[in-house]
Each structure stands twice: as C-alpha cells, then as structure tokens.
C-alpha cells in the first residue's frame, strides 16, 4: 500500500512519466486483448489465415486497414504483431534486468577484486558489436522461437543495465542509513533487500525500459534481413513485407505506415518513462528540467 501511494506520487511529479505510462498501458491492454480483438475482426473465422479474404483490398469499412498479399486482414495482423513485439521486449527486458541487477549488486556491494573482475567483463561485453552476433546466431540457429530470440538478445543487453545500476549501488552503499543497518548487524542480503533495492527501483525501471527497447529494435532489425524467428509475425515483419511486395504502389499504405507509427509511439512512450524517472529521481534535474 505504501509502495502504491509512493508510485502515484512519483507519477504525479512528472507529466512525461504519466504520459509515457498511459501510452504504454494502452498498448499493453491492446496486446493482452489481441486474441479477443482478432476474433471480433474475423467474425468467427481466423482473419490472419492465408487467403481468408481477397488479396490487396484497399482500406474499407469491412477491412479498416485493407488486406495484404496473402489476403490477410492487416488490422488483425497489426494487433497480434504488436503483442509479439511487446512480448519480446518483456522477455528480454526481464532477463537482462535480473542478470544486470544481480551483477551490479554483487560488484557494487562487494567491491574490491570482485568488482574489478565483473566490471572489466561487463566493459568487454559492452564493446562487442551486438548486431553482427545476433545475425550470426539467428542465421544458424534454425527455427528459433520467440523466447530463444529474447534470450539471445538479453545475453548482450544486460551489461547496459548492470553498468547503470552498479554506479547507483556504489553511491548508495556509503549512505548513513546503510552504515546504520550494517552497525546493527543486519546481514548483507537483508541490507540489499530492505535498504538498497527499494531506493534503486527507478534505476531498475530505466534499465528495464532500455533493455526492452533494445530487444524490440533488435527483432525488427533481424526481420529486415529476413532472419526473424519462424512462424511469428511481429511489427517489423509487416513493414518489410510491405516493402518487399511493393505494397506501397498497390495502395496498401497502412501495412507500412501503421506499424511504423505504432513502433515509434512505443519507443516514444518508453523514452518518456526513462526521462520522466530520471527527472523525478535526479535532484539536479528536478524543477529545472520541467518546462
């Protein structure tokens, strides 16, 4: 309950944070409801099935966004693709945040040579260009599933999270209240869970949002080269179908425009949450950073 009121208070401090959260919530809602919505669009039949309708129908009352080269309803495709894109963001976001948090706490809290080894390793992973590795992985891991792509992406995105959180752990570790807890003989794990973790939640949130962004971008990027996971349609795939089939010249512009708009909106929402959280929790930016 205390956490809830604190959250509400935080959100009210920043319009950007609030706006980002509202957009994101709407999108998640759309994604969660996607099976129901797709059903409603199909009116009993599966609108994403091949040849469900005529090919290349222009947008009309029946098909708000028209149909694609196989006669699938574009609106239904976009809705279910949005849920796929959000899923990959969530999978990779959770994995890399968890790994990042563990590494950051061990490194930041233990210090000494443990910190040295972990930080050097994190630094090394940070400079390896991810995208070539990702292309290589998915090119040769045949029939990868969505979850596997998520895992592959998070292998390379946890160092970012770890780096941001570690520097915060370092600054928090020497605060008086942590010393007080240590003097009162609290165990390390206890201090981490009760004293440090709650204060780091906003930074963990920032780490999660950037990892999720990176993962969605990574998957869309893989689709450009035609190396996405098999059997799933994400927003990137719709865009590149539109390009490869010349949908633009056939009047099927929604296939191209709608996914790009949705993805841009998603990027903007996650970015607003990032910046909003930073504004709220970085006292130096508070006040002046607002309009």
């Amino acid at each position: 309950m205390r956490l809830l009121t604190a959250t509400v208070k935080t959100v009210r401090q920043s319009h950007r944070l609030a706006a980002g959260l509202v957009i994101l919530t709407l999108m998640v809602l759309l994604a969660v409801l996607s099976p129901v919505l797709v059903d409603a669009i199909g009116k009993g039949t599966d609108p994403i099935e091949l040849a469900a309708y005529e090919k290349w129908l222009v947008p009309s009352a029946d098909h708000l966004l028209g149909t694609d080269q196989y006669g699938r309803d574009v609106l239904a495709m976009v809705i279910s693709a949005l849920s796929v894109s959000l899923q990959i963001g969530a999978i990779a976001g959770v994995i890399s945040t968890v790994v990042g948090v563990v590494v950051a706490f061990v490194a930041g809290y233990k210090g000494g040579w443990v910190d040295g080894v972990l930080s050097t390793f994190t630094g090394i992973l940070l400079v390896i260009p991810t995208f070539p590795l990702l292309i290589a992985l998915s090119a040769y891991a045949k029939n990868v599933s969505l979850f596997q792509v998520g895992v592959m992406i998070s292998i390379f995105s946890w160092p970012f999270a770890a780096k941001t959180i570690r520097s915060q752990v370092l600054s928090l570790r020497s605060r008086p209240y942590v010393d007080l807890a240590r003097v009162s003989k609290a165990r390390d794990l206890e201090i981490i869970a009760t004293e440090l973790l709650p204060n780091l939640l906003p930074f963990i949130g920032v780490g999660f949002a950037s990892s999720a962004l990176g993962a969605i971008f990574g998957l869309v990027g893989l689709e450009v080269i035609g190396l996405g996971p098999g059997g799933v349609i994400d927003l990137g795939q719709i865009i590149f179908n539109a390009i490869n089939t010349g949908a633009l010249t056939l009047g099927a512009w929604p296939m191209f425009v709608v996914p790009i708009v949705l993805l841009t909106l998603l990027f903007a929402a996650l970015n607003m949450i990032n910046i909003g959280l930073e504004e709220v929790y970085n006292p130096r930016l508070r006040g002046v950073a607002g309009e």
Partner: protein
Amino acid sequence: MTATAPPAETVVGESAESAPSRGGRAWLARHPLAAYALRRFGLYLVELWGALTIAFFFFRMIPGDPIQTLIQTLQQNYVYNQQASEEIIERYRHEFGLDGNIFSQYLKYMENLILHGDLGPSLLNYPTPAQDVIMHSLPWTIGLLGVAAVMSWILGLVIGAIAGWRRGKLGSTITTNLSIALAHVPFFFVALILVYVFAYTLGMLPARSAYDSAISPGISADFIGSVLKHALLPGFSIMLIGTFGWILSTRMLMVPVLGEDYLVYAEAKGLKPWRILTRYALRNCYLPQVTAFGISLGFIFNGNVLVEQLFNYPGLGTTLVTAIQQLDFNTIIGVTDIAIFSVLTAVLLLDLLLPLLDPRVKYWK
C-alpha cells in the same frame, strides 16, 4: 582496478620498459599521471584481448562447415567437377586456419593477427586476404558514417544547448519533445520513409548502391557528384536520428548548469547572452559529450549494418551480412574485431586526453 587476466601480467612487463625497472614503484608514486596512464593502458589491453577472444569463440561455435560451402561454390562454378579429395579439403582447412582443435586454432589466429596483422584468407573472395576485403569496404563506411556522425554531434550540441538555454520558450519545448519522441527510433525507419518519399514518390534521389554504375570510378566531377548524391539518403537517415539523441543529452547536461552561480555572475557583469552560452555554459557540458561521442562510434556501427543493407551500400555492414551468409569466418571476425578495436581505442585516447583538456578531470589519487 586489479589486473586479473594472464595477458595483463605480460603487458605490464612489456610496458615496464618505458618506466625504469629499478625503483619503478617509487617513480610511479611520484608521477601519478604516468601511473594512471600505464594502468589505463593495461586495462585497455585486457579489454581488447577479452573482447577479441569472446568474438573469436562466439563465431567459431556457430555450426556449419565453411569448407564444404567453399567446395560447393567452386563446383557450381565448374572450377573443378570431380568430388573434392580428402587431401584438397585438408589443404583448405589448413589454409583457412580450421585444422586442429579450437584452442590451437585460437592460438594460431591470435599469432597471425598480432604479429602479422593477418586475418587469413576470405572465403568469399578466395584467395584474397580478409583484411583486403575489409579495407575495400571500409572507406565507404567511414565516409558515410564518419561524416554523418560528426555532423549530427555538432548539430545536436548546438541545438541542444540552445534548447536548454531558451527552455520554456515554445520552440525549445517543441524541439525537446520531438527529440524525446524520436531519439530512440531505429535509423532505418527514417531511411524507409526517406526512400519512399524521395526515391519512389518524387524520384529525385537514388535509393540503392554507392554510385551510378554507368560512371567509372575515379577522380572526376561526375563520379564524385554521383557518390555524394547516393550518400545523401543513407547519410541523412543516420544523421537525423543521431541529432535528436545528441540534442536530448546536451539539454540534459545543460539545464543543471544554468542555475549555477557563475552564470548569474556572468550575467551580472553584463556579458551578452550568446557569449555566456558559448564561453561559460557550453564549455561545461561539451566535454562529457566528447566522451559520449567516442563511445557512440561503436554503437552506430550496429545500426549501420541495417542502413547499408537497405541502401545496398558497399560498406562494412553489407560485407558483414554477405560474409555471414557464406560462413566466411575470417571476414566476419575481422569486421567485428575492427569495431571492437575502434571503440576501445577511441575510449582509451579520450580517457588519456581528457585530463589534459579539462583540469577538473582527475582519475588518479
């Protein structure tokens, strides 16, 4: 930072030549800057070694037999039509550094790389060495990316500073919110929209390749004009998104500075606002941005693969994708190595130079 990996020990031994070995510790204690530089250089070598090693093992663990691929290609091209004999396959394995177990391959690869700067032959363009293949595409990438990256950095710094300076004004609010919305949009979204508008709808600019194939490459006005024209769309799509990112981070650095006392003092002295902005405020936020720029060079490379793919631009990204499709290990690892080397070296140089540029920066005790 403690040196942990074995190469670090040898590194320290080697670089000790520059410092007198007797009483070296005392000498270093008296010269903290030199001690810092040495330690920083040692860390650089450890990181370089670690990253190159991870990249090597990562790519070698991908399943698939490149030699079979090569022989199939040769057979398809009728270079020879009978079944390849064991002996020939063995020779190729040796040639490409694929014989023996992975650890001996690794040692041989590192030896060739460090002692001879040799990446081994490229599978795609056998027998051309991989480094020659890479050097062939590198100028295109550097030309396109280097210019786009520098321009977006300068533009972002200037616009971001002004947006921070004039915060609360309508123009500044619009710029800031636009940057927030667009700073993390992938490069190729912009690329797609630009191609759609300028290449397909208006037909003003070419959408593919680096120059008009009807013009023969050389130092002529026609050729240079064609290269510039072809670089316009991919360059602009990289630049646009990059600029938004720099605007955002510059503004974030700029705004806290604005409340500082020395700015109030400068204002009280009656200095012109432009002078205060450039001489006082901007100076304090451009150094962190210099560091960020060095680090960003490597990450631009990630997105660049896609932009080059989309525009069919003959740079490193396109070379990389083709190489991965053909399992051309030496070229793949070579491209990755170049990216790793450039980021780490850029960051090292910046770390060593910053204390000289900014008297407030002190890494040593």
